């Protein structure tokens, strides 16, 4: 998420780095690049202008010129301003003691119905009793879609087949919710164009007659310049209480979020980061601004780690590690937890300084690679799992055959396990923050190189290269090696010439 904006801004700031002193002129270049990058990220033009004025005002002041490291200082200002623009934060749904009515609205295809399901899931987690209401009477099968989603989440869905008036449906639904002890009613309204007066009127009527407690605008993360116009229209019609941005798990830069926030002024509540119904994250401007600037998002990582990992198993592992035990069986458990769909890429994207890696991992089928590793471990006997030293060539052959891999894959896994166990023992007893720092140090020192490890297992890269492409890549590699050799030789000569 936001990687593309990240890369853009990073390259903007790279041009600032290495210039000892920041002059007004060279900073202007950097700011120009920031501006272009924001535009490419689909931040609306007027919002970009406002933003640049604020940054420029501060950056061109004395402070920057006196600062020790000008590029860092400038980066800090952009970062602060991004946070200021995206905040303040208010993730609360402001639930009342009896029945709270939430209304979702937005353009067609923004993801309202899916978001309804995600909200219901979230409310269930908080021990609330949500009910979904099918108020989209326009799109064919929209009601059925909500019913299927309701079933998946396990919450009741209210609908009136054949109904024509969404206002009536909503009112009846709220009445039913009151009588059945439901805490939260989520209204799924039909997608509409902001310029469709008739449908906007209908929305206004629902607002007046059902008077929802909170009205949320659902915005597609891929929206372009139009975001300002549509968000403004919805805000004027309804007085929005919050914004939910969807589809932020792709490479959309999500700059529209800055635009929507700027024109509506209402807090961003959640972001949708996947197709699964638990992929709704609480919005945090710091994390978002950090991501934009390529600083990673450690907090989100901790959140995911907490949510996704089985706490009991983690505790058991901690204890074993503290005793200095780390076996293949535990390694398998770890893999299984990480091998959840989409999790790996998400986590790597959030790791500080590893933003570029998600790009490198595009096309790498991490999950199935993990599953293959698990398959290898599953093909071992319990004895082999607790004592991998037992594995001789004949056992290795048997394991490889059982798991349907080549013999060297088994050796590779054992080698990897060997390295891992050293690391895991170091990790034991350390907090999340310490671990993150260690992981970063390791990454910087090249110890942890997921990219390299992935290629070792020899799975498809997702791209089938033609013979020509392969030859080209080989040529490039050889040229690089020659260049490196030349550099080494060159370095030697310089030293030789010295006094």
């Amino acid at each position, binding site marked *: 998420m936001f990687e*593309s904006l990240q890369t853009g801004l990073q390259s903007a700031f790279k041009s600032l780095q290495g210039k000892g002193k920041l002059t007004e002129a060279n900073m202007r270049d950097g700011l120009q690049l920031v501006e*272009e990058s924001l*535009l*490419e*990220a*689909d931040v*609306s*033009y*007027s919002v970009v*202008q406002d933003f640049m004025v604020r940054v420029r005002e501060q950056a061109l002041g004395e402070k920057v010129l006196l600062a020790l490291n000008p590029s860092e200082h400038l980066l800090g200002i952009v970062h602060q301003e991004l946070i200021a623009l995206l905040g303040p934060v208010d993730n609360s749904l402001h639930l009342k003691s009896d029945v709270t009515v939430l209304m979702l609205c937005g*353009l*067609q*295809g*923004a*993801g309202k*119905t899916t978001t309804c399901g995600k909200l219901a899931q979230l409310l269930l987690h908080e021990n609330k009793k949500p009910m979904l209401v099918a108020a989209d009477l*326009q*799109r*064919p*099968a*929209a009601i*059925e*879609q*909500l*019913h*299927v*989603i309701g079933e*998946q989440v396990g919450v009741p869905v209210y609908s009136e087949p054949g109904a024509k008036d969404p206002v009536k449906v909503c009112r009846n639904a709220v009445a039913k919710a009151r009588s059945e002890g439901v805490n939260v009613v989520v209204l799924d309204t039909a997608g509409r*164009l*902001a*310029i469709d007066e008739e449908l906007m009127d209908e929305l206004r009527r629902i607002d007046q007659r059902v008077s929802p407690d909170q009205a949320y605008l659902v915005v*597609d993360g*891929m*929206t*372009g*310049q*139009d*975001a300002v*116009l*549509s968000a403004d229209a919805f805000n004027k019609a309804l007085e929005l209480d919050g914004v939910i941005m969807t*589809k932020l*798990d*792709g*490479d*959309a*830069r999500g*700059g*529209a979020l800055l635009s929507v926030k700027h024109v509506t002024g209402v807090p961003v509540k959640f972001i949708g980061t996947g*197709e699964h119904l638990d992929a709704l994250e609480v919005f945090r401007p710091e994390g978002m601004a950090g991501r934009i600037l390529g600083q990673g998002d450690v907090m989100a990582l901790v959140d995911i780690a907490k949510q996704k990992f089985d706490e009991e198993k983690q505790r058991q592992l901690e204890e074993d590690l503290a005793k200095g035990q780390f076996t293949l069986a535990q390694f398998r458990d770890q893999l299984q937890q990480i091998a959840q769909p989409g999790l790996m890429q998400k986590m790597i994207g959030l790791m500080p300084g590893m933003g570029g890696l998600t790009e490198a991992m*595009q*096309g*790498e*089928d991490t*999950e199935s690679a993990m599953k293959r590793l698990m398959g290898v471990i599953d093909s071992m006997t319990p004895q082999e799992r607790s004592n991998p030293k037992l594995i001789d060539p004949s056992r290795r052959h048997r394991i490889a055959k059982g798991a349907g891999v080549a013999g060297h894959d088994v050796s590779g896994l054992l080698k990897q396990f060997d390295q891992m166990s050293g690391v895991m023992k170091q990790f034991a007893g350390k907090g999340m923050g310490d671990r993150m720092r260690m992981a970063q140090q390791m990454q910087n020192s090249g110890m942890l190189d997921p990219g390299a490890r992935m290629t070792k297992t020899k799975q498809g890269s*997702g791209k089938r290269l033609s013979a020509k492409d392969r030859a080209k890549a080989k040529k490039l590699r050889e040229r690089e090696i020659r260049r490196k050799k030349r550099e080494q030789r060159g370095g030697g000569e310089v030293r030789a010439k010295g006094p």
Partner: protein
Amino acid sequence: MGLFARIKDGLKKTRQIFNTDLRDLFKGEGRLVDDDFLKELFAVLVKTDMGGEPARRFRDRVAKEFRGRVIALDDMLTSIKAELHELISQAETPLHFADSGPTIIMVVGVNGSGKTTSIAKLAYRLHAEGKKVVLGAGDTFRAAAVSQLSVWADRIGCEIVKGKQGGDPASVAYATIAKALEINADVAIIDTAGRLQTQSNLMQELEKIRRVMGKQIPEAPHQVLLVLDATAGQNAISQAKGFSEVAHCTGLILAKLDGTAKGGVVIPIIQQFALPVQYIGVGEQLEDLDLFDSQQFVEALFDGLG
């Protein structure tokens, strides 16, 4: 309503905004082309979602031709139109039909871009032209997507092949083609689940669907249409790139062009990927799908100004 009138109607809102903005630049008779003017022009262009780079090209062209002069609106419009034509001029590209047997059309795109609705409109259009159409409800992932397409098929009165929710989309594609061959249909349009171009597993699934289609008719799919949301910004370029690489798109459908969004992002897409825009969606009714025509697109965009 005639074809041209309908497109113009659909683009009215787009045009209104574009024109109002441009008009604002010309308070009074003419204006001096200076830095301020060029900056305002750049803003107007960027707001169409065409992207920074094409907008800079337009601006620089106007700067080169008119800087330091006081110009009238007409002069500048002619200049911009000429440049726009140069960028997206393309032969009108109606659907290409197979010489014999059914023509297989696969429709792909990101979630919520308007695939299912566009398929319904396309089927309606072809059905009205007297073609025998079979739909394949290959979106087995999204809840009720199959029923959504079934409702449309009923309204149009064409055949539909359905898969099970959560079933294998490739098998639906296979069954659709088999049905098309069996009933001697002219066209089979196959829906796929929405996916982001960065989800490599799901993108590989598209490759598989393609492969399976080729089993009964080696040339299938004859056409792969990518549906783009006109409200999308620069990410649409990444979509065009990702889907072209995997699904080998042959053309675009630009959906939801009836709102305030301008769909300017097709300009860099046409430039970079040589993908023709075949249809535009200009409303919510079945008949609201029209052939894209760069000439009309440009003219309708600037209509009422010249």
